[in-house]
C-alpha cells in the first residue's frame, strides 16, 4: 500500500483529518480500489464522517490490492486521531513547506509511515502504530431523501456563526420557500432564561432547493462544524439531504477527486423508541467490529468497548453530550452494529474478547469479569448506553447529564482490572 500526495493536496489531507477530529478520537484508514477512505465515528455512533480520496487525488496511488481491480487489499486499520493530527500539525505552513507526503505500510506491517518531504531537503517521518479494525460502513442512501438543499458552504457557515460555539444542537425547519435554523432547547431548560436564536434563509439563497416534505429536524451542530470549515476552504458546494425526524441527515461535498459525507443522527419525535424499530432501520452489517458494538437490549446496559490504543483516560466522553434523557434515534453510522436486540450480553462480550485479546489484554480481562457480574450490579464506568443515556461515564463532558436508575458507578480511575474487581466485589 503506497500513496503519494503532492504539494497542495497535502493541506487538503491535513484539513480532512482535522475536520474528522471534531467527530471522534479514532481515524479509520482504509485504502480501497476506489480511493483512500478516511472515516470517523463518534463514541455514541450518532455522527459519522467520511472522506474518500479517489486515485486522481494522489500523485501515486496503490491500494495494495491484487491486480485485476476486483478485490480490495483487505487492509484496514484505525489509529488514534491525535497521532494523525500530529503529522499535519501546523496546517498553515503545510502548503508552504511540504512538497510531498508519502503514506506507506512499513515492511514489518506494523506501522503506517507518513513521510513529509519538506523544503530544504528536510524529511519528517512519522511511524504510527495502528490497530486492525473492521470496516466502518454506514448505511445511507442519498437518493432516497425527500429534501435536498445545496448551497455554497459560506452560506451555512455564515448562518452557523450566529449560534454560540457551545450550542450543541440546532433545529432546521424547512418549508417550500424557506429554511429556518433555530437553536434547540433541552426539555428541562427554561425558555425564558435562554437566548433563542433564529435564522431564516430564503430558497433563492441556495443553489438548489428541493423540498418535497415540509419538516423539521434537530441534529448536533458540533460535529458539523468540522465539515463546514473544510468545505469553506475547499469552496465546494455543500449538499444537505434529509426528511423526517429520526432519519439521519447527510451532508455531502462532491468533487471529481474527493467525496465527503457526514451523516448525523437526528432527534426523533417519539419519546420512546423500541429497539426493534431502530434495528429494522439499521440493517445488519456483515462485519461486526470486535471493538465497538451496540447492544440494543432495553433492560441491560450496553457495553461499549474502548478501543483507544492510547489509554483509558481518553475512553469515555459522550461526545454528543446532551442526549441523556432523550432517546436519540440513529439509523446512521450504524457501523458494525449488532442489530439483533435479543442477543444476550454474554455472547457479545465473548465475541468482543476473542477478537481483541491480542490488542488489549487488559480490557478483555475486564470484559470477562463483566460476564461474571450478577445482573443488576451497576455497570462499570466504561459501559455506556448509547441511546438511553442512563449510564454515564464520569468523564462525560455534557453538563446536563442525569443518572437514572443508578446506584454508585464504579469510579475506576483507570482500567486496572484488579481495581475494578475489588470495586465490583464491594457492591
Amino acid at each position, binding site marked *: 500500500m503506497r500513496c503519494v500526495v503532492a504539494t497542495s493536496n497535502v493541506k487538503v489531507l491535513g484539513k480532512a483529518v482535522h475536520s474528522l477530529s471534531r467527530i471522534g478520537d479514532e481515524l479509520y484508514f482504509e485504502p480501497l480500489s476506489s480511493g483512500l477512505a478516511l472515516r470517523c465515528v463518534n463514541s455514541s455512533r450518532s455522527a459519522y464522517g467520511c472522506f474518500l480520496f479517489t486515485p486522481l487525488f494522489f500523485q501515486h496511488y496503490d491500494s495494495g490490492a491484487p491486480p485485476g481491480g476486483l478485490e480490495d487489499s483487505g487492509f484496514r486499520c484505525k*489509529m*488514534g486521531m*491525535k*497521532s494523525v493530527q*500530529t503529522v499535519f*500539525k*501546523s496546517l498553515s*505552513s503545510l502548503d508552504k*513547506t511540504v512538497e510531498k507526503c508519502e503514506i506507506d505500510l512499513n515492511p514489518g506491517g506494523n*506501522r503506517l509511515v507518513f513521510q513529509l518531504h519538506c523544503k*530544504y*531537503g*528536510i*524529511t*519528517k*517521518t*512519522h*511511524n*504510527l*502504530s495502528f490497530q486492525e479494525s473492521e470496516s466502518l460502513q454506514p448505511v445511507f442512501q442519498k437518493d432516497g431523501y425527500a429534501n435536498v438543499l445545496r448551497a455554497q458552504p459560506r452560506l451555512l457557515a455564515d448562518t452557523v456563526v450566529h449560534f454560540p460555539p457551545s450550542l450543541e444542537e440546532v433545529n432546521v425547519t424547512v418549508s417550500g420557500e424557506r429554511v429556518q435554523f433555530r437553536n434547540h432547547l433541552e426539555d428541562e431548560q427554561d425558555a425564558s432564561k435562554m437566548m433563542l436564536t433564529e435564522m431564516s434563509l430564503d430558497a433563492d439563497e441556495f443553489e438548489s432547493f428541493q423540498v418535497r416534505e415540509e419538516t423539521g429536524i434537530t441534529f448536533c451542530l458540533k460535529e458539523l462544524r468540522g465539515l463546514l470549515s473544510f468545505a469553506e476552504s475547499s469552496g465546494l458546494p455543500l449538499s444537505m439531504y434529509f426528511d423526517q425526524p429520526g432519519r439521519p441527515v447527510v451532508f455531502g461535498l462532491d468533487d471529481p477527486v474527493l467525496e465527503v459525507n457526514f451523516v448525523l443522527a437526528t432527534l426523533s419525535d417519539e419519546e420512546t423508541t423500541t429497539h426493534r424499530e431502530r434495528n429494522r432501520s439499521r440493517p445488519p452489517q456483515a462485519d461486526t467490529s470486535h471493538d465497538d458494538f451496540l447492544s440494543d437490549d432495553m433492560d441491560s446496559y450496553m457495553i461499549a468497548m474502548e478501543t483507544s490504543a*492510547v*489509554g483509558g483516560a481518553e475512553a469515555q466522553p459522550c461526545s454528543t453530550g446532551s442526549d441523556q434523557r432523550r432517546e436519540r434515534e440513529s439509523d446512521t453510522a450504524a457501523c458494525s452494529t449488532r442489530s439483533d436486540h435479543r442477543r444476550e450480553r454474554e455472547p457479545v462480550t465473548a465475541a468482543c474478547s476473542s477478537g481483541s485479546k491480542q490488542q488489549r489484554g487488559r480490557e478483555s480481562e475486564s470484559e470477562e469479569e463483566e460476564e461474571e457480574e450478577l445482573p443488576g450490579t451497576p455497570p462499570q464506568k466504561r459501559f455506556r448506553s448509547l441511546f438511553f443515556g442512563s449510564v454515564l461515564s464520569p468523564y462525560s463532558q455534557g453538563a446536563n447529564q442525569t443518572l437514572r436508575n443508578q446506584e454508585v458507578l464504579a469510579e475506576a480511575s483507570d482500567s486496572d482490572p484488579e481495581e475494578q474487581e475489588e470495586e465490583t466485589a464491594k457492591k
Partner: protein
Amino acid sequence: MPLSTQLEAGEEQYVLIASLDNARNLSNILKAIQFKDHATFLATSNGIKVTVEDSKCLQANAFIQAEIFQEFSIQEDSVMFRVNLAVLLDCLTIFGGSAVPGVTTALKMCYNGYGYPLTLFLEEGGVVTVCKINTQEPEETLDFDFCSTNVINKVILQSDSLREAFSELDMTSEVLQITMSPDKPYFRLSTFGNSGSAHCDYPKDSDMMEVFQCTQTQTNRYKMSLLKPSTKALSLSCKVSIRTDNRGFLSLQYMVRNDDGQICFIEYFCCPDEEVGEQEQ
C-alpha cells in the same frame, strides 16, 4: 527607615556599573533562560554572564558582552552574585513588557559588592523607578567540561527550520534523540511517543545547514523536559550550533540579534539521558 535589609552604598563605591539605553536588550535574553527562578551573575571586564541550572543536568548561560552596554565599568577582576531572576525580569519590564515603537526603557544597573543589593535605575518617558533586589551567596555553577577539542560532531543550522521541527515535536515522548553522522541520516531528531516514533531529518547539503562537521555516527538521548526551555532561546535566535562531545554531552549555542542588531549568545549544556553506543533503529 530603610526597608532594605542590606547595606546602602554611595555611587563612588559601586563595584559594577552597567548602563543600557534599551533595557529590552537585556530582558529579552534573560527571558530565554528563565526556566528557574534563580540565576548567577558573573561580571568580568568582558561583560556579564548569567547562568541558570536545573537538576545538575542542564545549564543555560547568557552572554552579554561589555560592548553591548552604553556604559560598563567594573572595579574588580570578577564580580559574582546570585539573584532572583523572576524578580529581576519583573523590574526590567516594570514599565510594561510589550514593545511600543520608539519608546524604550533606559537601565542603569549598579552593584556595590558582596552583601549589597543589586540596584536598578529604570527610566521611561521621564518617569524614574529605582529597584533594589537583594542578592544571595553565589552558588558554584557546574562545569560541564565541554571543550572544543572533544567535540565529535558539530552542525550549525538556521534557526527557522529547527524552530518548526521543535514546535512539532511529539511531547508525549520522554526523550529527544539526536543522531549526527557523516552518513545518512546526517542529522536526525527523533521522538518516541504514544503514537509511535517520529523523525525529522536534515540532509548535510540542505540550504538550512550552514556548517556540517560530523566525523562519527553518534546517537544520544536527552530528556525532553530538560530541552524544552531551550525552545525560547531558539525562537529568539537566527542561528544555532549543535555540538556533541565524546561523552555525548550536548552543547547548543544560539546566536541572538537584539533590537539594535548587536549579537549576543545563549548557550545550553545538557547531559545525555543514557549511553547509546550504536545508532538505534
